[in-house]
């Protein structure tokens, strides 16, 4: 009997102790965090094996690198690095969550997410304006105490939150840009339409039939068109201030007839116009960059760099698979794709961190329909590291969430909870 017990023990030991295969490849994980660069203190990077099998993960910290050792189904993969950057990142991102249909919606919320944790909190929801649309949130220089957003529908307008003050102005302008000095806000005033395609890989197109730039003076309350940026022949949109407030950048395109049918002919160029800081623009705008076969959207300025979204045509790149992020060097006037950030699918809205070291942008690379947020580090030489998907408590959360992330903006501290004061604006 003892002889057989011994044989059994040997067999059991042999089956447990051996059989782990070493694989020289990195593991195929979702999200793909292999080789990304993250800020210190970011929320844990939770991932799973792409094939759905269970995995065991151990993490070793060596200097500024975390080494992830992953084993799955008796295969031990090559450890992959995650690099830690000492560059600070703004601690919160604010974004809108909306169903990707865009023409209609049910619940819309503007939410803030703490980057160092998985905590997500509602800043404002469309329950305040009877389920109308809320959109185009914007912060003055990333300062969460100074916020603008639009609330459409009956009794709607533009909500201004400035410290403790909350006001609702009957302005129905579209894209805002708060002047660094704080007194002025440039808006584009757009007449926007949607059209839906038949049997195309791009199901929706959004276009403007009219758009101009207007300037709001918060001290006087006056909203005036910018003379050089007004008129039916040119479509002006997407205002963005330089950091010193002396230049307003924007996008402009020649208007065309039957714009829906001729949407392929609408190409926006990047323009600039000087501003004196006291409400006066110079008379002549300048072309900063243009390409007759492509269109510029969402210029965002940081130092001598402007990041923008480039697509084949039009003004709503989120529906364009070919849309990519580009970087313009204002000192040389040359632009090039932001290497490492782009994919085969849409890259669109983006936001610089306050120190210019990080970028958050929207991408549809996961499934072509649901926009997700990616963060990348900008090296001192202007190159970008491999972007990483905003970490979630569970990897599958990225699949299960049936809303798109819209207009991600870094903010330097948590947005104060002003839901009650916002709600009161709509109770009147």
């Amino acid at each position, binding site marked *: 009997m003892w002889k057989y017990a011994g044989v059994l023990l040997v067999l059991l030991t042999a089956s447990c102790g051996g059989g782990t295969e070493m694989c020289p490849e990195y593991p195929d994980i979702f999200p793909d965090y292999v080789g990304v660069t993250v800020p210190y203190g970011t929320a844990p990077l939770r991932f799973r094996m792409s094939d759905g099998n269970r995995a065991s993960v151990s993490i070793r910290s060596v200097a500024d690198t975390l080494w992830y050792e992953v084993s799955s189904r008796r295969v031990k993969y090559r450890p992959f690095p995650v690099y830690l950057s000492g560059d600070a990142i703004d601690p919160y991102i604010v974004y809108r969550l909306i169903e990707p249909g865009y023409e209609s919606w049910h619940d819309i919320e503007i939410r803030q997410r703490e980057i160092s944790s998985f905590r997500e909190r509602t800043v404002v929801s469309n329950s305040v304006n009877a389920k109308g649309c809320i959109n185009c949130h914007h912060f003055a220089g990333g300062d969460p105490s100074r916020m603008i957003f639009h609330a459409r529908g009956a009794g709607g307008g533009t909500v201004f939150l400035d410290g403790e003050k909350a006001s609702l102005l009957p302005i129905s302008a579209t894209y805002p840009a708060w002047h660094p000095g704080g007194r002025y806000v440039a808006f584009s005033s757009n007449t926007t339409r949607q059209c839906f395609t038949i049997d195309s*890989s791009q199901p929706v197109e959004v276009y403007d039939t009219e758009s101009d730039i207007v300037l709001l003076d918060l001290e006087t309350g006056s909203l005036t068109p910018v003379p050089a940026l007004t008129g039916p022949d040119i479509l002006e949109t997407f205002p963005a201030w330089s950091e010193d407030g002396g230049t307003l950048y924007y996008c402009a395109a020649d208007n065309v007839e039957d714009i829906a049918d001729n949407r*392929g002919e609408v190409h926006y160029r990047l323009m600039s116009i000087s501003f004196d800081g006291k409400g006066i623009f110079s008379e002549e705008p300048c072309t900063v960059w243009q390409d007759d076969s492509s269109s510029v959207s969402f210029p965002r300025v940081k130092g001598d760099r402007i990041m923008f979204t480039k697509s084949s045509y039009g003004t709503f790149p989120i529906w364009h698979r070919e849309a990519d992020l580009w970087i313009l060097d204002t000192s040389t006037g040359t632009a090039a794709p932001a290497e490492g950030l782009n994919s085969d699918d849409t890259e669109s809205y983006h936001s610089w961190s306050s120190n210019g070291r990080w970028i958050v942008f929207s991408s549809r690379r996961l499934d072509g329909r649901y926009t997700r947020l990616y963060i990348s580090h900008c090296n001192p030489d202007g190159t970008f590291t491999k972007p990483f998907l905003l970490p979630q408590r569970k990897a599958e*959360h990225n699949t299960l969430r049936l809303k798109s992330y819209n207009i991600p903006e870094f903010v330097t501290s948590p947005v104060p909870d002003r839901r009650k004061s916002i709600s009161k604006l709509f109770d009147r």
Partner: protein
Amino acid sequence: MKKFILPSMMFVMAFIVGLLFQSHTFVQQGHLSLFLLAPDYFREVFGSPFPLSYLLSQFLLQFYDIPVAGAAMTALLITAVYCLSRSMTLACALWIYLSLSGNIQAVVALAFVAAAVRLVLWTAKVHIGKRPTPSWAMAGSAVLVVCSAVFICLSPSVRNREIRAAVEEDARQHRWEAVLETLSPRRAEEYRDLLPYAMLALNAEGHLMSGMSAYPVKGPEDLDMEGVRTREGYYFSSLLSECLGDYNGAVHYIFQSSCHLRHGTSLLTLMQLIRYNIENENYTLVRKYASVLSHNPRNHSRARKIMEVYGRKEDRVPDADCSVAEIVTNDPMVNLGLIHKAGITSDMAAERLAAYMFLQGNIL
């Protein structure tokens, strides 16, 4: 033994009435429900009033796509309310309310309350219902149950909901003969807003031009629900788009329809999106929606099978230039031409176009 007579009677009557007169309604309720084991779902539910009753009602509703299950669970709920409250009046009133409104959450909530009261009384050792029910009271309760059953069976509101639910589900399943059987020319007089379904069924069967004269069709507006900005209107438009082969349109309209639902989606939405994206060869989205659906206990296995079948399929190659794609208009007749121009041809579209032209007086 006597104490089981009334509950048994309640259950059996509710079950039979449900199965015979409300089966399609149950299926529709199940389809329009949503229960997911997912963080966003729980956040939304627990951020709203009465989350527990809502959660339990949605959990039950996911099984309502099996009519027998729907009838049994409804009967069980009503019977549970009676057993907990010992009030046949309350149980029958709730049964009628549930049949007319479809608001199962209210019944679940009341069942919770009744259970809680029972628990409190039991803890306090207060005994209710221990005395035997006199025969006259039992007879009265039985009459109440029968009267409630008759009321529900004969209620125009219940019948209305059942017919609408039947038509929607039969159309979704392409059971066109069943649609035409439900929407006979005579019944279509009463349900004019469902006339587009009858026209769609005739169209699918290839008899639109010959068959529509029997129906009370007054104009081209009876062929579709263009401009009907309700859940039902958009849902019909998604089915119509599907039948015509315009799957982009079908996806768009099912999103529109779903925005009228509490979570902006439902089990039916997910199933339709899977279906349409398979036709569009957009398998990444098929896998996504199947993954979401797999977090619904009722549909877990079905979703897993979908993911196995489409797990490795590649998406269709995107168009090189989307600026030349045809775009839909607000004119259904023009859209038929554009669908044809986009290369999607079907006898249905051709017959439909002829019908529009005829009704507009363009064909003598």
